[in-house]
C-alpha cells in the first residue's frame, strides 16, 4: 500500500522556518490560509507532521509539556504532539481545528525560543518610527485597544502574542499570526524593541517607572511558557532579567483615545535624549 502524499507548507515566524506537512488537502488549505502572510520559501529548520484525528473540540484542559527522554511531549485534550529537538522533527495528532494548530505552534516556538534567549509574551506590539513597542497586561488591560488606537503609520505586529528574540542592540520584536480580539494577523516584519509598557486604563496618560524586580515579576507573569523543565526555567529567568536590563520597561496608564500614541512618541524622544545625556552603561 502506498502512503498518501504529504503536502508541505513552510511557515516562518520570528525568522524560524518550520515545515508543516499533512496528507489532508483540506487541512493543508486551512493552514495555508491561516498563515498566509508567514509562508516562506526558506529551508525549514524544523518539521512537524500533522495527522488528523476525530478528537473533540478545543479543550480548556491545561496544557502539559514535559520531556520523555530527549523528546518533548505536548498534550492537551485536543492534541498530542511529540517533538525531538535533536532531529528537529515532530509529529502531531489533532483534529482539524485551527486553534489547536495555533496552540501547538506557539508551544513549539516557546521551546525553541527559550533555548535561544527569546520568548513569547502576552502582549500587543507595533512598529512606530522604526521601533517596536510592546503593550502587556492582563486580559482587558487594553492590548487590543492600543492597537485600535494606533495611527495609520503604525505597523501592527500582533494584538495578542508578541515574539521576542535577542539582537545585537538588545531585543527585536517580530510579527506573529496569533491574533486576539482584533482577529487580524500581524505584519510579517520586525524592529528593535524601544520599550515595554504594562498597561492600566485611567483618566489620563502617564508613564511611570517600575523597579527592576517588579518589572521582572510582571514580565514573568506574562511570558508564555509551559514546560516543566528546570534548565529551561533557569534560562527563561535569566532572559527576563537580561530583557529588563536592556529594554526600558514602564507602567503606562492611559485614557483610551488616540492621544496616548503622542505620549508614547514623547516618551521615546525624552528617553533617547536623557540616555544620550547620561548613558546608563557608560
Amino acid at each position, binding site marked *: 500500500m502506498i502512503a498518501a502524499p504529504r503536502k508541505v507548507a513552510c511557515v516562518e515566524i520570528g525568522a524560524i522556518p518550520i515545515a508543516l506537512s499533512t496528507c489532508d488537502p483540506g487541512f493543508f488549505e486551512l493552514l495555508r490560509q491561516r498563515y498566509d502572510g508567514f509562508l516562506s520559501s526558506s529551508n525549514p529548520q524544523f518539521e512537524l507532521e500533522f495527522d488528523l484525528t476525530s478528537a473533540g473540540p478545543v479543550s480548556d484542559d491545561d496544557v502539559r509539556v514535559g520531556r520523555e527522554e530527549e523528546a518533548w511531549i505536548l498534550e492537551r485534550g485536543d492534541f498530542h504532539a511529540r517533538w525531538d529537538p535533536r532531529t528537529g522533527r515532530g509529529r502531531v495528532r489533532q483534529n482539524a481545528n485551527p486553534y489547536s494548530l495555533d496552540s501547538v505552534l506557539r508551544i513549539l516556538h516557546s521551546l525553541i525560543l527559550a533555548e535561544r534567549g527569546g520568548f513569547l509574551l502576552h502582549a500587543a506590539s507595533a512598529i512606530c518610527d522604526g521601533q517596536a513597542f510592546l503593550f502587556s497586561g492582563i486580559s482587558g488591560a487594553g492590548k487590543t485597544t492600543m492597537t485600535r488606537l494606533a495611527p495609520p503609520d503604525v505597523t501592527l505586529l500582533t494584538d495578542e502574542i508578541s515574539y521576542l528574540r535577542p539582537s545585537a542592540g538588545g531585543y527585536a520584536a517580530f510579527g506573529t499570526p496569533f491574533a486576539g480580539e482584533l482577529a487580524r494577523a500581524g505584519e510579517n516584519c520586525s524592529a528593535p524593541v524601544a520599550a515595554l509598557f504594562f498597561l492600566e486604563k485611567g483618566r489620563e496618560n502617564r508613564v511611570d517607572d517600575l*523597579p*527592576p*524586580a*517588579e518589572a*521582572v*515579576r510582571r514580565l*514573568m*507573569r506574562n511570558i508564555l*511558557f509551559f514546560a*516543566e*523543565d*528546570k534548565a*529551561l*526555567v*533557569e534560562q*527563561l*529567568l*535569566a532572559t527576563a*532579567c537580561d530583557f*529588563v536590563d536592556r529594554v526600558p520597561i514602564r507602567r503606562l496608564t492611559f485614557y483610551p483615545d488616540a492621544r496616548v500614541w503622542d505620549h508614547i512618541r514623547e516618551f521615546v524622544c525624552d528617553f533617547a535624549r536623557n540616555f544620550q545625556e547620561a548613558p546608563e552603561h557608560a
Partner: protein
Amino acid sequence: MPEHCIYIARSSAIAARALAGEMMVMNSADSTFFTLNEVATAIFQAADGHTPLREIVRDHVCEQFQVDPEQAQADAEQFVAELSSHGILLVSNQPLAAETP
C-alpha cells in the same frame, strides 16, 4: 526537653536569581513565581539543609536587620511554611541534603 529544630533546604526544582537586592524564585514544576524581600532572601540563601532555622534567623536576620528574635523567628516560620507549600523550600526536623538550585 530539647528544643524542636527546623531544617530548611532549597528545592532542586527551582530557578533563582538576585536583582536589585531582591531574590526572584520560580518553581519549574508549576511556574509559580515569587519575589523575596531582603529578609526572606537572607533566609533563602542560608537554607543549606543542615543549619537549624533558629540559627539562620539569629545569624542572618537578627544581626543584619536588628529585629526582635522572637518576632523574627515567628515571621521566618510563617515564611518557610508558605514557601514550603509551594515546593520552593524543603522542611524537616532533621538535617537535609543540600539541594542548591
